[in-house]
């Protein structure tokens, strides 16, 4: 197992280099000058524009740090390779560069915002695991009962409803309408992540965004759980267990569930990775200070250091989550031997 993990961690390196290189190549292909975008409707003074290009290693400089000019007096763009080297050197020193638009160091931005993304993702994933797996089990065990139909119907609706719309409904109901009806005695926060000036406890701010973020995936998780469990219940070994006279409860909890869980765990794991990459819609609707909307904006404004930093972070997080999911298989199903001889064959 230890060897397997080391092997997987070492595989991170080529994947990481590949992803960042592709992104760097994209910077050269995608139209739009990030420095011109800083000015927007108003043009930047030429001297300032050049200083910014020098600062962000976008043009070549001589030994004294001045921009190299060509025969027309225009600055010479820095090569992609050199910029990549700058980036990687910075990265190894823990420096992700500075956001073109926001001016702040990229590491500062993520250090401030990433905890919010992680906390929200954690709440949503716990909700998703409990509700999804729970609903899936109930509807499989009580197949064709009222509960089964309820779960099937609810999940169909949730899958079809866009998350942001659900979020807006929740805001309207819990934030505005209930507040009116109860004369202000009860309400949930509409947006934000709390803080000293909020009238609510910080944790209350997580309720609606977490429900919204988890909604669609919970529905999927419930459906996967249901079909898997039904599948497993038809297996021979379950019949054997029944023949041995085990109670239904014991069969489900001890024999069926573990085997049925693997695809659900895979799904939830992948979903957790996706949530940790930020949730653009949920963050926008609830004004959540996470990284999703930050990266989205950075892409449209060609704020490359922020995009690169975000991708670097997401790549690492997703790779780690995938590793954890793979390792968890071994616990769920002893037949799966990570890194064993069968793997190598």
């Amino acid at each position, binding site marked *: 197992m230890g060897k397997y993990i080391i092997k997987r961690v070492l595989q991170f390196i080529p994947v990481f280099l590949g992803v960042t290189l592709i992104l760097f190549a994209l910077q050269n292909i995608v*139209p*739009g*000058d990030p420095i*011109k*975008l*800083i*000015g*927007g*409707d*108003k*043009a*930047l*003074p030429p*001297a*300032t524009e050049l*200083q*910014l290009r020098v*600062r962000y290693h976008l043009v070549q400089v001589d030994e004294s740090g001045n921009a190299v000019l060509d025969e027309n007096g225009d600055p010479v763009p820095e090569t992609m390779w050199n910029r990549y080297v700058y980036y990687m050197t910075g990265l190894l020193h823990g420096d992700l560069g500075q956001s073109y*638009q*926001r*001016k*702040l160091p990229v590491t500062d931005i993520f250090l401030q915002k990433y905890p919010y993304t992680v906390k929200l993702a954690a709440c949503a994933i716990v909700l998703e695991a409990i509700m999804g797996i729970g609903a899936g089990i109930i509807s499989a065990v009580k197949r064709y009962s009222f509960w089964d139909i309820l779960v099937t119907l609810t999940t169909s609706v949730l899958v079809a409803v866009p998350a942001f719309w659900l979020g*807006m409904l929740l*805001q*309207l109901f819990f*934030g*505005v309408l209930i*507040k009116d009806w109860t*004369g*202000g*005695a*009860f*309400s*949930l926060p*509409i*947006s*934000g*992540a709390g*803080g*000293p*000036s909020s*009238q*609510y*406890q910080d944790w*209350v701010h997580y*309720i609606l965004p977490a429900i919204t973020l988890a909604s669609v995936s919970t529905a999927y998780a419930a459906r996967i759980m249901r079909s898997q469990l039904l599948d497993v219940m038809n297996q021979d070994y379950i019949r054997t267990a029944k023949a041995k006279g*085990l*109670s239904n*409860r*014991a069969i489900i*909890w*001890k024999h069926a569930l*573990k085997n049925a869980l693997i695809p659900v765990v895979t799904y939830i794991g992948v979903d957790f990775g996706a949530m940790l990459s930020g949730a653009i819609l949920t963050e*926008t*609707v609830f*004004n959540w*200070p996470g990284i999703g*909307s*930050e990266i989205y904006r950075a892409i*449209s404004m060609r704020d490359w250091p922020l995009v690169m930093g975000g991708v670097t972070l997401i790549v690492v997080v997703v790779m780690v989550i995938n590793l954890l999911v793979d390792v968890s298989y071994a616990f769920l199903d002893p037949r799966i031997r990570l890194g064993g001889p069968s793997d190598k064959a």
Partner: protein
Amino acid sequence: MAEFKVNEPVMGRRAFVGGSLAAGSLAFLAACGQKGDGAGSGDAPATDGGKTLNYYINNPVCIDPYNVQEDQGTQVEFQLFDTLMQFDFENNELKGLAAESFDATEDATEFTFHLVEGAKFHNGDPVTAQDFVRGWTRLVSPKSAIATEYGPSEISYHLSVVEGYDALANGETDEFSGLSCPDDNTLVVKLSSAYADFAYIASHPALSPVPACAEEDAKNFYLAPVGNGPFMMKPDTKWEDGQYIDIVKFDDYYGEPAKIDGVHFIIQKDIETAYKEFQAGNLDVCDVPVAQIEAARKERGEAEYTMEDGKHMLLGAEPSAYYLVVNNNDEQFKNPDLRKGVSLAINREAICETLFKGTRTPADGIIPPGIDGYTEGAWEFSAYDVDKANEYLDKVAPMSGDSRGINVVLTYNQDGGHKEIMESVIGDLAKVGITAESETPEWSAVLEQYTAGTFQFGRLGWIADYPIMDNFLYPLFHSDSIGGDNKSGYSNAEVDKLIDEARATTDDDARIAKMKEADAIIASDCPVIPLMFYTHTLVGSDRIKNLYVDPQKKADLATCELA
């Protein structure tokens, strides 16, 4: 899971689960209320001190004067800092703020500001002329501590008329040679060329004084600036990126102290969400989404710039113009008759009414009302007149069937609601036989084309930094601005001469007369096509007894009164 006991009594566990669920939801309901005593008193947000205003802003670019540019960051910075002068839109005059008065030499190249005595920064330091020199120097110098930490200012152009600007901006020196302080309360500014309106520049929020700590601890100052204004950053707080900024009343303020205890700026990404917060009573001042404007006008009671009881919806005209930028060097558009024909063919009224519910006004020139020197109907070709449009277009290409065979490309960015406006324009042009095709790359690519001059016509907005004619005519039409903001590439020696002369004229009336003359010549050439003037749409809660928001959308929060 392996320790699961098959023979566990079933009911006991169910009762346990059910019981804990019920208990849990009860606790949840109880705890979900508000903080502290939990008495959610409806519309009054529970913040410390009863008189705190909850104000909506979008994510600011910067709240440090060295790079303050858009209206959101300015809103905060304006409360924290006082510049030398301030334009009083109500009385249409420039008034002293941190300066009592100023003198200008006859040739408009030297300005002397006399500071108010006894003013203090929020940290207790006295405000001296040196602090203005420090503030202005760090705005321009790429070597200042703030520029080293966060990059050079993008708005150093404000001071480009001051002597020594180039040397300082290029990093050749650390001293701003055009600035000097004979004593602590006198600031002398030497200009490199005449600029009679310099006192207006000096009223821009970016030109605020900063205390010594701004350079000694630039990293923290950027997020929690220390100024000389009526409000200060709440002690031990900073700008919480994407969340909020808290400011409180500054007790040692040299002027009239603020009437409220503080302001809680809530930073929101999405206006729809912000408006829901307003409806729930958690925001006192908020922008209105276009879809809600009509309802808000009816419910909240209209006013222009001042909120009062029963008048909590502000619809104030702003000194900014939305226009079609036309490439004057383009094969087709270098023909002025085509520009004039296009301009006359556009139904501006319809765009303002249908798309903006009357919250924008049709442009009748490039200078918006509210700017000294605005003339009604200043641009002849900004009127809507299809017959006249056809007259001019016939000179370009005669109508055959329902087309003139004129094909043009309109380049713009689709986001930000521009698509609908541009489609309306294209529809109007089709009626006079011009086929306009949209090209809608992303904003970054659009800007690149505008700058490189590889476009036919497009759209831009111009928001004045200073409420003077010069701030429209010089950047948009002077040939010195080509390569910068003059994206149409318009160049007219006569216009250049008139603007330069106006800049050297200290007499207000004579200067404005010259500017009007220049405006008239530009109008007859029709280098760009003005479409609309902006109006801001703000709503306030019933708590607000009095709040003035000026045309530049800067709220005078120090005079705001709460119930």
